[in-house]
Every structure is written in C-alpha cells, then in structure tokens.
C-alpha cells in the first residue's frame, strides 16, 4: 500500500515528484483535492494538494518543495518504498465552469496544483491564459505541461534568468488590461496569492485561491486549519482548500503559518545534522 512507483527530482533536488500507489484515492480524486501523508510511525500528518491522478493505473502524484523535516523525510523515500499512511481525497474539488477567458496564475510548487485545474478549465471549453513564475529558471517546474494545458503561456522569473523579468502580477496586469477575463485562479506562495487577488479586485475579476494552512486531521475535526474568509472562520480542509481570493485574510494566514516555526527549524536542523553524520 502507498508504494512509490515513480520519483523525480527537480530544481536541483529542492523539488520532488512522487507517484504513489493509492487506487481508492486515485479513483475518487478530482482536481483541487488534497491528501494527507505520513511517512512513518513518528511522522507528522501533512497535507499536499494532488498534482495529478491516474485512475487506471491507480496512482496519484504529489510535487513538493523540501522545506522542513517532513518533506525532507519524504524526499528520502526511494522508488519501491512506501508512505505509511495516505488519506484522501480531502477537501472540496475545484468548481470547473465554462465562463469564457480565464487566467491561471501559478508560483513555485503552486504550479503543480494549478496544472490539473488549468487542464480541466481548458477541457470544458474556456480560453485559458496562464502565467507561471519562480525565483529563477532552475526552480521553474512544469512549463511544458502548463503550455499544453493553456492556449497561451507566459513565464516570469524574479531574477530574469528566463522569460519576463519580474513578478507574475506585472504580466497579469497586462493580461487583465487587454483581455475580457471572467475568472482568475491563483495558486502559489501566500504573498503571491495576496497580491494577485488585490490586483484582480481592481479589475473586478472573480478570483479563486488554494490555501495551505497547517493541518492535523484534514477532516474538519480539529479546526487547526481555520482561516478567515469574509470575516467568517472557515476550515480549509472541509470548506476549502479553495476560497474567494477577495475575501481571504491573507495576513492572518501568513501569521498562523508561523505558529511552530521555532520547533520546525530545530527539527529540520537536527535532521540535517543527523543526515550529514
């Protein structure tokens, strides 16, 4: 159960792809949904939105950046080894509707989550314009896949090593000015989603974001993943993970994501030290 059947390292090993055997989840999962994974007995339960699923093969794919102990532990799993627990599909699937022209904006590993949604929006007949960005060329992922899933793709890098030199919001502004955009989808680092939403609000374009708060159970029983949306408290694991970007309190989310930063740093440092020994 939950065996890794394929493994790829990207962006100099900082981003990892795992294709995992999970037939029940693969059969049921829809774009936008996530799974909770646990590597071993002492491991944390962490949520990762699925990058892809293959119901015939019975597998799901996750793409994650190594940012701490749990993701580092996941990276250490080889092909043929298994995750101890994978739970899903969790969260509400993306609502896919034919509206006309849509803009899909992805940053960093958010592009992995954006890709199946972009593909879904194109398949039902929308005119899809995508904008993807990363700090530099070597950590930009899924460019070819996003190109295939869109009618037009724009690429940005913060350092100008590839594509437009600058943030995705700069390209987005130009697109919003030129096109009659009916819907925007933004998935990436929280500041990116915050600023994309701010921009689309000025253009009155409805915007969907996918949030990534800290989670424990993923089934709505603990409230650890609570986020403020339009002044109301929602649980990202059952009410989300997608929400109206114009209503999300991104600043509160950014603060809450720091809740365990000291413990996380210590844990990761200890793990890295152990690996080097």
């Amino acid at each position, binding site marked *: 159960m939950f065996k890794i059947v394929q493994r790829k390292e990207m962006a100099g090993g900082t981003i990892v792809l795992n294709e995992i055997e999970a037939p*029940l*989840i693969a059969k*049921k999962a829809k774009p936008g949904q996530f799974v909770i994974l*646990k590597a071993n007995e*002492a*491991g*944390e*339960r962490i949520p990762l939105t699925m990058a892809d699923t293959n119901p015939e093969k019975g597998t799901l794919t996750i793409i994650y950046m190594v940012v701490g*102990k*749990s993701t580092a*532990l996941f990276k250490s799993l080889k092909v043929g080894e298994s995750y*101890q*627990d*994978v*739970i*899903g*599909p*969790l969260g509400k699937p993306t609502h896919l509707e034919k509206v006309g022209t849509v803009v899909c904006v992805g940053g960093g590993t958010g592009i992995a989550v954006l890709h199946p949604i972009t593909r879904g929006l194109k398949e039902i007949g929308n005119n899809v314009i995508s904008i993807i960005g990363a700090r530099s060329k070597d950590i930009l992922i899924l460019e070819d896949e996003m190109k295939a899933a869109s009618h037009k793709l724009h690429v940005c890098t913060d350092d100008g090593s590839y594509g437009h030199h600058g943030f995705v919001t700069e390209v987005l502004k130009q697109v919003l000015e030129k096109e009659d955009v009916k819907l925007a989808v933004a998935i990436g680092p929280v500041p990116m989603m915050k600023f994309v939403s701010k921009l689309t609000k000025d253009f009155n374009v409805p915007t969907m974001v996918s949030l990534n708060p800290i989670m*424990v*159970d993923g*089934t*709505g*029983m*603990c*409230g*650890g993943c*609570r*986020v*403020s949306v339009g002044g109301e*408290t929602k649980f990202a694991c*059952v009410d989300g993970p997608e929400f109206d970007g114009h209503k999300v309190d991104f600043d*509160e989310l950014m*603060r*809450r994501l*720091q*809740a*365990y930063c000291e*413990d*996380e740093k*210590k*844990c990761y440092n*200890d793990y890295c030290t152990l690996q080097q020994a």
Partner: protein
Amino acid sequence: MAEKTETKKTTPRQAMPEQKPEIRRRNFQEVPTGYTLEQAMAEAGRCLQCKKPGCVEGCPVGVDIPGFINLITKGDMTGSIRNLWSKNSLPAVCGRVCPQEIQCEGYCIVGKKGDAVAIGNLERFVADYERMHGTGELPPRDKPTGKKIAVVGSGPSGLTVAGDLVRKGHEVTVLEAFHKPGGVLVYGIPEFRLPKEIVFSEVAFLEKLGAKVECNQVVGRTVSLDELFEEGYDAVYLGVGAGLPKFMNIPGENLIGILSANEYLTRANLMKAYLFPKVDTPIPLGKNVVVLGAGNVAMDSARTAMRLGADSVRIVYRRSRDEMPARKAEIHHADEEGIEFFLLTAPTRFIGDEKGRLTGMECLKMELGEPDASGRRRPIPIKGSEFMMDCDLVIVAVGAGANPLLTQTTPDLTLNKWGYINADPETGKTTKKGVWAGGDIVTGSATVILAMGAGRKAADSIHNYLTWGW
C-alpha cells in the same frame, strides 16, 4: 449471615493505588496503577451478591456485575473475563473511563450505608489480568452467515458493534478515517487515563475474533455510503462521533496559541506530541495556560498542559463548581495536580502581539440567574467586572457538534436541526434502509459507555435485520 452482610457494609472500600500528584503532574503514565490480586479479592468480597442487583440496572450495557465479581472471589479470572465479555467488549476501557459513580456504583446497595463496591476498579483488574496473564483463548463464534457489515468509525460504539456482530458469525469490516484505530479512545482520552497500548490490544482482540479493521478510510470522501452497498455490504453502522469543534466566536480567536481541545488532544494523544522531538508533530508548550470549559475534555486538556510543563493552568468556566459537567474524580485529580479553577468567569476577547501570538484574554465575571434550556442556571455577566488574564495558550473545550463530512454526502440520511443523525433510540435504525447509527453522532457529545450501549442495541437490530429483514 446478617452479621456477615453488616461486616461487608462497613468494611471500607479498597483504595486504588495512585501516583502521587506532585510526581504524576509531570509524567504521562497512568494515574491509578491498579489493584493487586489481594486487593481485588478483598474488594470483590464486599459485594453482597444482591438478588435484585441495582448495579446491573445502572449499567448501560447490562454487565452481569454480581456474576463477574463472584468469579473473582473464587479466584477464577478466566471465568470472570468471559462473563464480562458476554456483555462488554471493552472492559479494560470501561473500568477506566466510565462514570461509575452515576451508573453501577451509584446504585450499589453497599454504597447506601458505606462506600460502594469498587465495580470499575474490579472490571479494570479482571481485564488487565487477562491481558497480562490470560490464556488468550477466544470466546466462541457462531457459524458464518455470509452477511457483510461495514462499521464506520472505530471508536467505542463501532468497536462494540464489530465485536457483537463478528461473534454472531457475520463478516465485519471497520473503516477508520485516522491512521490508527480507536477513535476518541485514542485521540481524545489522554495516555495517563487510558494507555493507548490497551486500546490497540482491545482492537487486536477484535481482529483475532475475525473483524477486519481498515484505517485511512474516510467514508464520505474515500468512499461514499452508497458505494459501500454497491461493494456488497448488507448493512452499515455509523459510529463517526461528534467531531466538530466548537469555538467561542469572540474577537482574536484566530491568534496563534488558541487551539480547540480536539486539536490539542489529537496532537498530544494520537500524534504523541508530548514526546516531541522524538516524534515529528509539535504541540504548543504554554507557560500560562487557560482552558475554557469544565467537562471531562477540559480536565483532560488542563492535565495534559500541566504535564507538558506549564507554570500555571487555569480552568475558566462561566458557571459554578456545582454545574461543572466533568466527573468528580477528574475534577479531584485536576485539583490535586495544581490546576486552578476560575469559576463564574467568561472570556470576551483575546489579545495578541504584533506577530499574531496570544498574550492575554479579557474576562468578565458572571453570576447565576434562572435555569436556561439545559436546566442549568444561566450565567449573567456582571457589568463593569472586566479583567485581564495573561496567557500564552488557550484550549477551547466548550463542546463538539456533528461533523458534516459524511452526512453532507448522504442526503437521504435524515438529520435533526443540529446536524446529528436521527436514529431510533431503541434500535439505532436511521431513515436510510440498511443504515444504523449510534453514539455521539446521534446524541451529541456524551460518554464512551453510552456509545457502547447504543452500539449494543444497534448490533442486535442489525442481526435481526440480516436474519429476518428490515
């Protein structure tokens, strides 16, 4: 004979050996350490073997209490555990967590003139004895019926249904959403009240009997209720629990350092975060902790925070001591461990620093007015009584509602206005054919034993259905 009875009535109850408060308040080992064989036999000897046992009336699953106790006096522990198993599939759990004082022991005749017979301690003794010294011989199982039942949730209710039906010869599969079985027995009740090794041992026993237990199955997501029937199950039991944390909905509640009791306890108990960093899941280590609420969950949260090294742990409750819903035994243990009680007090808002971390809680003093809908006296704020409480961790333990994950995806399951499942109180039948429900998802948050009682009734009804029809 009368003289012997009189002696029994005035012989004091065997005291349960316990870890001393000053030691146990900083460790996660069990507080009561269990009777010795001598103590068990002495205590069992106090039972009058009443012809009309009130204790049995008081037991939600109808354990043959005089029966199992009599076997202890004869030194027949194997006979005693078998007697227990005929009515109670989780005696090691019940002996530890049941509110015996309002159930069996509350009805005990010996208790009218002296101390009630320590029925709970004896039940625990027999179950632990079997686990440690027993033959491991399994109770009998009826011939296979070829009928399949899916039990959703591996908490006390689901485990009881599984145990009863597997013994009647049915094929039972328990589907659990978490990665470990046991439900609230594992994520809710702390290690120092109910060691998890005991829960897993009880589950392993059920598996030996023939029940299948599958974890990481979220019914309502991984598989829907209707799909279970498509897969060939003949009946489904829903024991998914209450599982929706209630918050105060006051300003500042999303500051870092405010957790629902469900989150706090799940980190501590299921994820074993009290062992961090030996395990990867962290838990906030508050120095000045406040727990909102005064039920058993609040006591569990407060005592856990104390064990995690808090300088002060305060229970803040809007009513008075008499209205506190927690078991007296748990309040007493909390008291001994240095937990303070701020009664007739309610929070109005939380204060935090510029990083969004909790630094304090503003409170109002209350006084009690006329009874409200729950029958308890209504707390009325005292104007102008605001005061600040410094704190860096608040655990919100003010109750749990019905988690809608499964019910949302099953529209033909009728719910009441609170979102709990409508089920016949005598049979557990829901409005959906072939589906039963019991425990907290029907009644709202209650106890382990009541969930088991509901499971018992539902198992009987399911068996009748599979034998005779709906």
